[in-house]
């Protein structure tokens, strides 16, 4: 029995050792200029403190969201983002001592291969590319309003992240317009930190760089349990001449649909962006969801809902930002007032000194 056991051990251990040796060799043989010069790996991200009051119940969340990016040679890039947060609220809703829980999640942990000018292949865990909010605006140092739009769960089930492969790039990249594409497939996983649903989908964008106008469409098919489709469209407009930003999305899911439209206007035209008033950025968002049929567990409001959000953000020096917002939710299941305030600090530094 013993020789068989040791042979099994050899069979299982050898490939791991071989993979480790090859990986170490690959890292050691990386071109020297990519480990120095301008390609030193970075640690970026943000720390933040969020305070919310929803229908009279107060809760707060300290958040640490690090991003690690490391180029591996000329064609590879490893990148990841994690979210570590505490969630504290009173034991009995609005009375009693505060008690908390700790949550951690891997939002993406991916290896990118720049195969060609118009093709990047990604493998690992990545943000599900449905609509624009999930990929572009979920980072805590980017979002203008603390809470995600109501339709966010459409197309991003189950966790907003996918495990599998993705291809993306610019199908056409002319000075006047870009046509971008993304296609992905995700496998189902229940592993801790890596939960994902089995799904596939795509997104196409038409972007006019001279006007900073983008329109696009997304599609996703959920391929586990009851298969269903999600589709969406988005429109962004960010004119160069004045600091107005308009972003909007529409999404249609199996049991509900809805839209959000958000506009921000930084007051930087008054004495510049670094002046007392120039650091202010009012935000307005309007959103609505329509329930077509009951969809328990789909993360969307159980009844038709309208919500209006008023935000006021302040861009402090040294990458610190103060966001505040008031939201009024109107729904057949109950109206609500939501107050949010958050403070975030964005950081970025090299992992090591590197050569100048």
């Amino acid at each position, binding site marked *: 029995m013993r020789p068989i056991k040791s042979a099994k051990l050899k069979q299982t251990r050898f490939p791991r050792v071989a993979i480790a040796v090859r990986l170490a060799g690959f890292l050691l043989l990386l071109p020297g200029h990519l480990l120095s010069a301008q390609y030193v790996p970075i640690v970026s991200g943000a720390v933040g403190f969020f305070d919310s009051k929803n229908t009279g119940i107060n809760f707060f969340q300290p958040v640490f969201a690090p991003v690690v990016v490391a180029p591996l040679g000329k064609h590879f890039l490893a990148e990841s983002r994690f979210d570590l947060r505490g969630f504290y609220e009173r034991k009995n809703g609005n009375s009693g001592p505060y008690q908390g829980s700790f949550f951690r999640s891997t939002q993406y942990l991916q290896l990118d291969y720049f195969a060609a000018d118009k093709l990047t292949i990604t493998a690992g865990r990545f943000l599900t590319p449905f609509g624009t909010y999930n990929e572009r605006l979920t*980072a805590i140092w980017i979002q203008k309003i603390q809470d995600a739009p109501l339709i966010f769960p459409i197309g991003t089930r189950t966790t907003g992240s996918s495990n599998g492969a993705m291809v993306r790039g610019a199908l056409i990249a002319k000075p006047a317009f870009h046509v971008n594409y993304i296609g992905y497939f995700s496998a189902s996983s229940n592993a801790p930190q890596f939960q994902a649903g089995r799904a596939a989908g795509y997104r196409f964008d038409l972007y006019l760089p001279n006007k900073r106008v983008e329109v696009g469409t997304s599609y996703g098919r959920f391929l586990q349990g009851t298969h269903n489709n999600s589709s969406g469209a988005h429109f962004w407009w960010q004119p160069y001449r004045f600091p107005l930003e308009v972003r909007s999305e529409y999404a249609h899911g199996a049991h509900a649909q809805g839209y959000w439209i958000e506009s921000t206007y930084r007051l930087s035209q008054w004495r510049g962006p670094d002046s007392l008033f120039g650091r202010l950025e009012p935000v307005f968002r309007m959103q609505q969801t329509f329930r077509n049929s009951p969809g328990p567990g789909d993360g969307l409001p159980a009844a038709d809902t309208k919500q209006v959000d008023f935000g006021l953000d302040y861009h402090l020096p040294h990458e610190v930002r103060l966001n505040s917002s008031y939201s009024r939710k109107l729904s057949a299941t109950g109206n609500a007032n939501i107050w949010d305030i958050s403070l975030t600090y964005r950081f*970025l530094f090299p992992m090591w000194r590197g050569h*100048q």
Partner: protein
Amino acid sequence: MKNIRSNSKYAVLPLAIFLLGSILTWAQVATSAQGAGRAPSAQHAKPAATNPGERAFQANCGRCHNPPEQLSPRVTGTVLRHMRERALLSPQDERDILKYLTP
């Protein structure tokens, strides 16, 4: 049903506020366009740049976030490689922005 009916009255309120906000925004834009004092900014209130790197930066990176206040020359390549994947930058845009950030 009663709640839904009463809520539908409120639907006019956010729409009216949004329209009012848009009108006020346009009014301010029109006023500031007539006056001279437009302040330059890294991201906002800036006409399209003539430098290809700056133009590519404004057209891509600046759409989602402000530029970092300080960016070490040691990490600009890494940041741009990251943005190439995130923002679907073309290799030419990546080179232009790299040159713009670390002249």
